[in-house]
């Protein structure tokens, strides 16, 4: 995945995060490397919403074997996870 495509993916992910978690921030204000759980107080319920968001909006189905909470640490890690699943 080239840099432009990766940046577009991160933009979509930020929009999904803001929408799914009803965050009062602009998607562009989320830093790529910001620790999401600490910065936005994401708990297990909110994290589950992101899992559902990946499935609904990115067509990513999470099998048990490849599910790791660490994939949701930052926008960068989510983008890496989504791009690998899309390969």
């Amino acid at each position, binding site marked *: 995945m080239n840099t432009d495509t990766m940046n577009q993916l991160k933009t979509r992910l930020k929009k999904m995060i803001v929408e799914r978690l*009803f965050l009062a921030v602009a998607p562009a204000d989320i830093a790529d490397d910001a620790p999401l759980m600490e910065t936005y107080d994401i708990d297990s319920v909110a994290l589950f919403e992101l*899992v559902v968001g990946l499935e609904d909006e990115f067509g990513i189905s*999470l099998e048990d074997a490849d599910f790791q909470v660490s994939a949701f640490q930052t926008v960068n890690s989510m983008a890496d996870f989504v791009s690998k699943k899309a390969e």
Partner: protein
Amino acid sequence: MQAFFFPTGDALRLFGVWRGVEAARRVWVLCPPFAEEEKSARRVLTLIAQELEKRGESSLLFSFRGTGDSEGDFAAANLTAWREDLRAARDEVKKRAPHAEIALLGVRLGATLALLEAESLGAQTLVLIEPLLSGRSFLMQQSAKKQIRAQLTGEAEAKSDHSPSDDLDGWKLGAGMKTELSTLDLKREMPSFSRKAHIFQVGPRAEVAPPLQHFADGLNSQARAVVMPPFWNLIDYSDPAPLLDGLKSEVFDG
């Protein structure tokens, strides 16, 4: 309000709460979602029942076998049995209010079951709130939920003596339920309902998602997006006003 038990065809007793008069023109059977989702959805379903009562309509909010206070073993339940439970609820309504129109309102799996039975139960109104379109997708999501909790708390998944998807937040799935859920796919096998259904998407988006729109088109019905958190997944209180307003304007006032 009356809280009571009513019988199923195989002599179990299901718990139900009746609100409203028995002489109501229309009686709603309120179908809750599955397992932990039932707990989170309870308050919203009660608020819907109270709203209906204010309007002179009646409702029966019940629990499927093996859930809530209803009799039966959850591990032995399956979708076929739960469809029979829905029939038992309709029979109870007919016993109490023989001349009333039957309306069905379901949330998530409760919506899916309501749709599957609506035609045969003679429902004249059908409200589907975030119907579960794919049982397999639901099972995977529930498994992810369990994985999240295990990983965040450091709880070893290996403690479980069965595979993650056999146990949903402490609700042990029987083989029959797992098989039926795995093969449940409303996108591939659309049930028929001869009237228009009222379909509600609940979530962050103001536009109806393409899969739900496609599903609604297949039912020759309209889908409406309600912007609010998915209350069936939440532990904390979420203001149900957007959904109640949508129900009033789309269904109850009609």
